[in-house]
């Protein structure tokens, strides 16, 4: 190498070389970075995507588990929610505002105030008219907010026009006001960010929330985290955020949760929904303030929307801090989630309950069906007690057996889960004992139950919240109860059953005088406990025949005589004896009114001797044969003359006689020819009153298909000691033979 030449070149171009070197040193890393940058970005994106997919999977499985918990505890019956009002639709608007903003625009574009404007046109200057809005073509937070502003202006203007309308006019179209209110309510749901659903206990808040999550949010892939009030305990103001972050992301970094929310919501064009169901189920005293701080933190992310559900009085009393928080204007409260069910909706729900509990059935008597659908808590108890069984025809609900079975299942279920823990028995006994001792039938102080049972408050709260037996309420703290929390039974019939059970099985053996005193003072027709407790005491006395003492005390009560027959016919047939049947016969002969009641009950419900083995329609046969003509006319024929037995009119009472004839038809078809219920055809046919034509037809059918049986029935009465029936049997043989028969 020619070093002198190099030296000379360097000395002549020193400045250029230095500049060149500096540039090279600066540019090379830059170029290197430029080449690396997309790789790093892609690597970062892939890493974040992987992380987000992991969170997404964890979130999905967490929410699904939360739903499954409620299915297991039967607070949520899948597929049982019936959309009878606008509450679920409102929740759709709230949870997926980007999509349902367009539905709201459809709704507002449809609004037609032509008639309102024409009626009131003379009295006002302005007209009510929404402009035609264009839908959100590219949903994003920015376009959504802009659209909300546009809608808000129009709604405010039109609402103001409507409010300025004079209402004096007789033909003021009230529908206009109603329509405007509906539109404003929908809009408020769409724009709010925290929705609070409030209602009383047992109204189906959890069922609605789980249905919304499972059937709407998960299906539309809206990211959702479902929590229950009971999940939160041991909280301070920052720990709730950490708890939720941990549940959703599996880590503790709140920032990564926020990034996930942004990523998911932008990608899916949805919002992120956090649901906290049953705020009242948290027993942590710090929960309200922790929740307040949590909501404040979460709302900093514009994609987050929060749904809370709570018992109304609990929310008003314990969550005042939320109602006065800085985000209070973002909160919307919906009070009352239920509406009255229409008949077809009741029927739908009835079938869904039976199907969910896997109950096979053939027929429900009208009165049983009415009883069950008029109180879905009772239907729920009925279904739980009969789950997984084939129950055939249900002509009666034996409440004592139903509640005993239900209670047994609940008790055994808890024992099984807690290794033989009998806490529910202890709690029930203390609640009932307090009610009996204090002569109150609701609002047992929680503290009394905690003290007497020595069970931890959290265990008692769990028991109360997991069972439909109990209801937890808050009483005015200015009252005598320091704790403020009280326990009642959710369902009066259950309360009455448990009080009667306690009276008969605990108090009577322990202290007969106290028992008698309670019955004499509290189980009186004008007292609230009377209907239920007297009935269940009666049933218990019939079920357990060793309780002679109970029977004797009850028989001395003033109401015994009047209620006896009513309660007896509601008693499970297996609990009845021959003595009871003989007593019914005596009651039948004692008065026309009682005879009518007995006939009605036997003929309409107890016509099947296989179902009702002890007290059934066959009881009447010897009675009728032994009666004088005058007695028969007064106590049997007179009843048949009444419209009750008409088979033509559609009244429910009358339809029940149809059941007897249908039953007879089935018997004949099934060749159950020794069934004694067939004989009653002879008595209806003999009376020659309403129903006798159908009875003769049935007899004729029987004669045609099973001649020997038909003749045996008629011949039996040809040879009886009663002249009237002897003659009727002669005549009927001649009448039935030539008839063609058929029902």
């Amino acid at each position, binding site marked *: 190498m020619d070093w002198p030449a190099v030296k000379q070149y360097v000395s002549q171009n020193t400045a250029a070389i230095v500049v060149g070197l500096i540039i090279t040193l600066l540019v090379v890393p830059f170029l290197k970075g430029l080449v690396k940058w997309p790789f790093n970005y892609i690597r970062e994106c892939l890493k974040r995507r992987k992380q987000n997919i992991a969170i997404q999977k964890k979130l999905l499985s967490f929410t699904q588990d939360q739903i499954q918990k409620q299915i297991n505890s039967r607070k949520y019956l899948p597929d049982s929610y019936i959309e009878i009002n606008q509450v679920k639709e409102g929740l759709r608007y709230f949870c997926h505002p980007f999509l349902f903003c367009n539905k709201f625009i459809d709704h507002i574009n449809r609004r037609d105030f032509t*008639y309102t404007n024409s009626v009131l046109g003379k009295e006002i200057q302005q007209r009510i008219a929404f402009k035609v809005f264009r839908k959100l073509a590219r949903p994003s937070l920015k376009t959504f907010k802009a659209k909300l502003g546009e809608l808000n202006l129009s709604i405010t203007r039109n609402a103001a026009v409507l409010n300025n309308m004079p209402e004096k006019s007789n033909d003021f179209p009230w529908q*206009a006001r109603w329509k405007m209110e509906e539109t404003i309510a929908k809009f408020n749901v769409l724009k709010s960010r925290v929705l609070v659903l409030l209602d009383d206990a047992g109204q189906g808040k959890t069922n609605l929330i789980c249905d919304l999550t499972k059937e709407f949010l998960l299906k539309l892939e809206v990211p959702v985290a479902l929590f229950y009030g009971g999940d939160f305990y041991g909280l301070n103001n920052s720990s709730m955020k950490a708890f939720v972050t941990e549940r959703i992301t599996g880590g503790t970094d709140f920032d990564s949760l926020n990034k996930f929310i942004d990523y998911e919501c932008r990608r899916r064009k949805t919002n992120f929904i956090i649901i906290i169901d049953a705020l009242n189920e948290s027993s942590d005293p710090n929960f309200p303030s922790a929740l307040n701080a949590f909501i404040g933190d979460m709302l900093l992310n514009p994609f987050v929307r929060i749904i809370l559900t709570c018992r109304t009085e609990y929310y008003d009393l314990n969550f005042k801090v939320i109602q006065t928080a800085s985000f209070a204007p973002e909160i919307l409260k919906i009070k009352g989630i239920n509406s*009255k069910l*229409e008949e*077809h909706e009741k029927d739908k729900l009835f079938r869904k309950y039976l199907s969910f509990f896997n109950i096979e059935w053939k027929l429900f008597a009208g009165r049983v069906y009415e009883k069950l659908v008029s109180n879905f808590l009772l239907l729920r108890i009925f279904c739980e007690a009969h789950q997984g069984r084939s129950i055939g025809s249900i002509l009666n609900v034996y409440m004592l057996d139903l509640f005993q079975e239900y209670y047994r299942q609940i008790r055994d279920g808890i024992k099984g889960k807690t290794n033989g823990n009998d806490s529910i028995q202890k709690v029930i006994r203390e609640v009932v004992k307090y009610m009996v001792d204090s002569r109150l039938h609701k609002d047992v102080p929680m503290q009394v139950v905690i003290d007497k049972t020595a069970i931890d408050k959290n265990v008692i709260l769990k028991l109360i919240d997991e069972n439909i037996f109990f209801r937890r309420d808050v009483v005015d703290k200015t009252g005598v109860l320091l704790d403020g929390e009280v326990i009642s039974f959710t369902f009066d019939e259950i309360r009455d059953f448990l009080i009667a059970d306690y009276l008969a099985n605990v108090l009577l053996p322990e202290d007969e005088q106290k028992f008698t005193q309670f019955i004499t003072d509290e189980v009186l027709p004008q007292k609230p406990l009377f209907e239920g407790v007297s009935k269940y005491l009666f049933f218990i006395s019939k079920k357990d025949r060793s309780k002679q003492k109970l029977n004797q005390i009850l028989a001395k009560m003033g109401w015994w005589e009047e209620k006896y027959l009513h309660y007896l016919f509601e008693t499970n047939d297996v609990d009845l004896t021959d003595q009871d049947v003989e007593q019914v016969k005596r009651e039948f002969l004692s008065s026309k009114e009682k005879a009518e009641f007995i006939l009605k009950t036997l003929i309409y419900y107890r016509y099947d001797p296989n179902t009702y083995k002890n007290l059934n329609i066959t009881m009447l046969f010897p009675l009728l044969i032994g009666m004088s003509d005058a007695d028969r006319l007064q106590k049997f024929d007179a009843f048949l003359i009444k419209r009750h037995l008409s088979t033509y009119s559609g009244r429910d009472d009358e339809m029940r006689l149809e059941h007897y004839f249908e039953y007879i038809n089935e018997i004949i078809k099934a060749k159950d020819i020794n069934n004694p219920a067939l004989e009653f055809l002879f008595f209806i046919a003999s009376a020659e009153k309403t129903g006798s034509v159908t009875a003769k037809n049935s007899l004729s059918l029987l004669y045609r298909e099973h001649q020997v049986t038909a003749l045996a029935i008629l011949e039996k009465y040809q040879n009886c000691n009663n002249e009237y029936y002897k003659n009727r049997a002669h005549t009927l043989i001649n009448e039935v033979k030539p008839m063609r028969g058929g029902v």
Partner: protein
Amino acid sequence: MIYYEYKKDHNKAYIFHVVKNISKGRFLRTMRVGRNSFAGRLLSRVYDCFFSETVDLLDEYRVYHSSEYGSFSEFLQKKYCLPDEVAVEGEDKLLKHKNTALLWRKEHVTGDYNLEMFTMSSDGALNILNSVLGVRNEN
């Protein structure tokens, strides 16, 4: 034409099965009345009584609820609380009669007379409306 009427959320509700997109102008022309005549104004109210604020159920299902409900009949059963057989038959009707729609609306929505007062006032009214708005070979 009135496919089904029932009570929903304490209001009487109707579902109409009609040919799609019958405008008020076309309706009045078919009824052979001028828009500004007395008969035209009356029939215009009748038209509103049918079509004002109606929801096209199939459109609503497709745009907003198809992810939520597996089929149109399931949507009718669950969202609109129709009895199962009515919902299934409703879906069949749309399949059999192309270019028709099931429209849902609440009674009293305009504030004017209700549907029964317009159509049941004389026996022939509903038949005339059927011939204009209804689906042929159906009623």
